[in-house]
């Protein structure tokens, strides 16, 4: 933060500056709360506008000849860092909700409280051992005994929780969909119309073009020449490049214009709806 002169933390001025700045920050919040309520929506709109103004101005203000950016460009890394740090504070929002619900369930022994206890225990263990792995990965947790050939360290437990627990369970959760795709394809995919037929034909060609089975089925066709167009991998590539691509591009144009319009409305606080019209 180049514009504010840093003070070595060994100097008592540092702690004074910290304390005064923190008090000033909290005082700012108190003052904001005390302001008339009809000022709130304009203030939110102003902050939203200022938030977008920096990047808008940085993009549109011309770059002087011989330079790589204008006078705003040099602050991009600072803006990125500030946004990252402040944004990180929001991690607590989801955690408070999740932990709060399960903590209450466990405490009052409601239905499923055993599972809630497991969740809370896993949360505490993962947090603790991720931090311990960062700060003291080689510290022994369980010393070497007769049954253990080597001591168990913080890093070992973290490895079990991350690789054996989190990564494996996360993979398994998403792998479940593979089963449901099979039953959905069998039970729900019915060819009832021209559009459904087109969809199915296109899907089958793309599917077979993506796997070795398709290459094997049409492997007898020559790799070059007119007949090669009927190899599954070539048909699949043709569909993706020449038929799928323009359709996707058209959809993208529509989405892009919508996103631009919505972003402009958000930036200028023109959006209406439940969130934006809440009682102040």
């Amino acid at each position: 933060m180049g514009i504010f002169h840093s003070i070595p933390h060994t100097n008592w001025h540092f702690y004074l500056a910290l304390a005064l700045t923190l008090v000033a920050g909290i005082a700012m919040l108190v003052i904001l709360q005390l302001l008339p309520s009809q000022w709130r929506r304009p203030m939110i709109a102003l902050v939203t506008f200022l938030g977008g103004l920096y990047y808008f101005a940085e993009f549109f203000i011309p770059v002087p000849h011989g330079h790589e950016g204008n006078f705003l460009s040099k602050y991009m890394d600072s803006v990125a860092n500030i946004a990252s740090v402040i944004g990180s504070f929001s991690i607590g929002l989801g955690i408070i909700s999740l932990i709060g619900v399960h903590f209450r369930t466990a405490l009052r022994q409601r239905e499923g409280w055993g599972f809630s206890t497991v969740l809370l225990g896993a949360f505490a263990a993962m947090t603790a051992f991720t931090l311990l792995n960062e700060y003291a990965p080689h510290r022994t947790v369980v010393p070497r005994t007769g049954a253990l050939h080597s001591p168990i360290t913080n890093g070992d437990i973290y490895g079990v929780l991350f690789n054996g627990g989190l990564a494996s369970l996360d993979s398994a959760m998403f792998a479940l969909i593979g089963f449901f795709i099979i039953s959905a394809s069998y039970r729900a995919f019915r060819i009832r119309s021209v559009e459904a037929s087109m969809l199915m034909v296109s899907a089958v060609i793309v599917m077979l073009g993506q796997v070795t089975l398709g290459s094997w089925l049409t492997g007898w066709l020559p790799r070059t020449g007119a007949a090669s167009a009927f190899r599954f991998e070539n048909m699949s590539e043709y569909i993706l490049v020449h038929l799928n691509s323009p359709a996707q591009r058209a959809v993208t144009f529509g989405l892009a214009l919508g996103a631009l319009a919505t972003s402009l409305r958000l930036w200028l606080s023109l959006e209406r709806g439940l969130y934006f019209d809440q009682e102040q």
Partner: protein
Amino acid sequence: MMAPYLHHLLMPKLLLGAVGTIAIFSLVFRENKLYRLFEHLFLGLATGYGLATTWTQVLRTKWWDPMVVQGEWIWILVIPLGLMFYGVYTKKYAWMSRMIFGLYFGLAAGTVFQAFASEYVPQIRASFKPLFSAPPISHHQFGVLANNWIFLIILMCVLIYFLFAFEQNSPVVKRTAAAGRVMLMIAFGAIFGSTIMTREALLIDRVRFLLLDWLQINHFLH
């Protein structure tokens, strides 16, 4: 012979992963308590990991160390700003959380202009493909021109299908939009075919873990 294999099977990292995978997969046969146990375990692990890594990889490196170690005292202001998020839990201070969220909406919105120019202008430019060529036209050129015509027709048909700015009353526009819908089905078929690869690949990877990494079946068969 058995002991090293048994030792491998019971390795905590592998055993937890294998039992967890089987427990999660048991859901496809029936909802059961083992699945729910591992589901809650997963949620707890994921939440804890997210919290810890936010500290170790973001807050500590970009906020705490610059503030405390390098003496950049101004970073303390992040605390009251960050606390504004938590106003959402109270009716009295909820408006403050909308202010900080508004800042982030603004930051994201401000980048959209550059993103639109950089991302979509080349797309528009690339859509103007050559449709004619001076004769004599070679076999290869004919193929390229034919593909360019197909590209343009599909692009226009699908764009017209998505145009809601005016009523599509004219029979020409209606038929073009209907053709656009059919062409969209081809794109959706391609997406469907691709979706299956992802979903099945994830499942195959888990089965591979169970059979090859954990049970090491290949050592017994070969």
